[in-house]
């Protein structure tokens, strides 16, 4: 071991086996971290609650984190209030909504079509939900991965936009991604919203049909972030900047189609995602088989793992998550919340770390978000409650 190796600062990062841990894994496997003079130790975790707790107590310096979890921690909703920062986004999109073959058959009778838009699919689902209610049948059950997750909010947004009350007309339950397909096979759930490869796993197993990607519901929608304690970020600015540069370069490598075969193979290893490389490759190529036996269909900009626009931590994303926490009554709004939310997503750190790497860095901290139902989320119009 050389002296430089011995003194290289170590950063311990926790991750969950999902496609969007790609940049973190590639930063280690392809030497981007070494080039920046840092040594990353990766720890695979089994639950988001563990990621949160181990970040809080300092087992992890940083983590692959659900964007809304970083905001929830800064607000102290659902758990201890520990200010977090999210200075880097780990890509855009990558989620989809899958339903059981039985529910898909009912939806088709109400007008749903394979590859149809979220409005068409949602309207059909809404008719199924109404029919079941008037027949006195049990409400449909949908799985998602965590209460403070984009999956939960995207699923709820879509349901509500087509007239289904996610708290009254259906049941929502949390199930860890690797168990979703089994739960669907066992009839415990009728649908779910999750990141890849877990939708494709259900289709591949012949038990589910993908009804929509969430990028069709919200184009350029955010997902995971790199999260760390605010106190760690303050104490270790150089390490954090080096980590962000390593992740940025790794994300560019991940976004290059020429590397997708290598990346899929890398992620397929049991110590990372532990899913078939072909499924991971298809998701990286934005080609999903929507139904068992169906030919892969291109989903434009389904998952964007890297590049300037996919890694920028937009404060408007954090504000939208907060708006959904309030909308779905996870938190009572307070005037002081807005500052806590805005201080969680940190484009200033992103710009500082990448000043010499990204030439035309984004000047604004927020942008206007537009959804499939033409609703516009304008953070400038968000006023303290």
């Amino acid at each position, binding site marked *: 071991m050389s002296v430089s190796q011995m003194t290289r600062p170590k950063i311990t990062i926790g991750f969950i086996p999902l496609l969007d841990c790609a940049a973190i894994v590639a930063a280690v496997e392809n030497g981007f971290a070494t080039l920046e003079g840092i040594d990353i130790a990766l720890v695979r975790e089994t639950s988001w609650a563990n990621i949160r707790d181990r970040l809080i*107590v*300092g087992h992890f310096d940083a983590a692959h984190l659900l964007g809304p979890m970083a905001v929830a921690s800064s607000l102290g909703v659902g758990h201890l209030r520990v200010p977090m920062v999210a200075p880097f986004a780990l890509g855009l999109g990558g989620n989809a909504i899958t339903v059981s073959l039985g529910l898909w058959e009912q939806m088709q009778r109400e007008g749903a079509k394979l590859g149809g838009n979220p409005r068409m699919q949602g309207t059909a689902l809404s008719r199924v939900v109404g029919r079941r209610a008037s027949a006195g049948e049990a409400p449909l059950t949908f799985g998602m991965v*965590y*209460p403070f997750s984009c999956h939960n909010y995207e699923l709820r947004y879509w349901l509500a936009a087509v007239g289904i009350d996610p708290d009254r007309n259906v049941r929502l339950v*949390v199930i860890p991604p690797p168990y979703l397909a089994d739960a669907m096979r066992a009839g415990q759930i009728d649908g779910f919203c999750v990141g890849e490869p877990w939708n494709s796993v259900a289709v591949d197993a012949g038990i589910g049909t993908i009804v929509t990607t969430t990028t069709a519901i919200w184009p350029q929608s955010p997902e995971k972030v790199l999260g760390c304690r605010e106190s760690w970020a303050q104490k270790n600015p150089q390490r954090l900047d080096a980590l962000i540069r390593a992740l940025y370069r790794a994300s560019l490598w991940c976004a290059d189609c020429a590397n997708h075969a290598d990346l899929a193979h890398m992620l397929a290893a049991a110590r990372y995602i532990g899913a078939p490389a072909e499924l991971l490759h298809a998701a990286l190529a934005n080609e999903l088989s929507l139904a068992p036996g169906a030919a892969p269909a291109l989903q434009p900009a389904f998952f964007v793992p890297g590049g300037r626009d996919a890694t920028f931590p937009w404060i408007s994303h954090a504000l939208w998550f907060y708006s959904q926490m309030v909308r779905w009554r996870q938190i009572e709004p307070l005037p002081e919340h807005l500052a806590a939310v805005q201080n969680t997503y940190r484009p200033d750190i992103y710009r500082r770390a990448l000043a010499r790497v990204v030439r035309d860095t984004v000047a604004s901290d927020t942008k206007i978000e537009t959804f499939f139902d033409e609703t516009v989320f304008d953070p400038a119009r968000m006023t303290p409650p």
Partner: protein
Amino acid sequence: MSEPSLRILLVDQNADRASILEDGLREAGCTDITVVREMHSLLRRIVDADPDVIFIDLENPNRDVLEQMFQVSRSVRRPIAMFVDQADTEQIRAAVESGVGAYVVDGLHKERVKTILDTAVSHFHTFNRLRDELERANQQLEERKVIERAKGILMKERSLNEAEAYAALRRAAMNENRRIADVARSVVSAAQLLK
């Protein structure tokens, strides 16, 4: 001791660890303990047990399931993650390091809960130590076996006696800065290749 015993629910897929903790909690005076190993119908079990305190092992991916049940279910009294109202993270650290997650129903007397959490943490540590010891014992046994096989190979191939064979292994280990068991493994796999 006029206070009624707290109702405790233990969610653990590892039967050995669950019984170690259950015994420890009983010794500490808890009599009302429910152990859940099966994850299906978890909500039903929680409703039936109506616990004051819930423990779950951190290797369990269903921890996220449990947390969401507390958030949404109207049929469960809302337990919250432990020490939510305290800035002190020492006890969370102790719990996480031992591998246990703890939830308590709001409003319980802190000192009572603290004693129970300490019991859980110390018994998770006991289990970890037993597991480590078992692993070490298995490893030692395996190493002793492989050294015996390597000695046998050297005795046969190089006409050495047992002491000479062991000395040869030890010399190689010292020269190459490796452990004797690792050298022995190389000898055994080389012999298998040459078979």
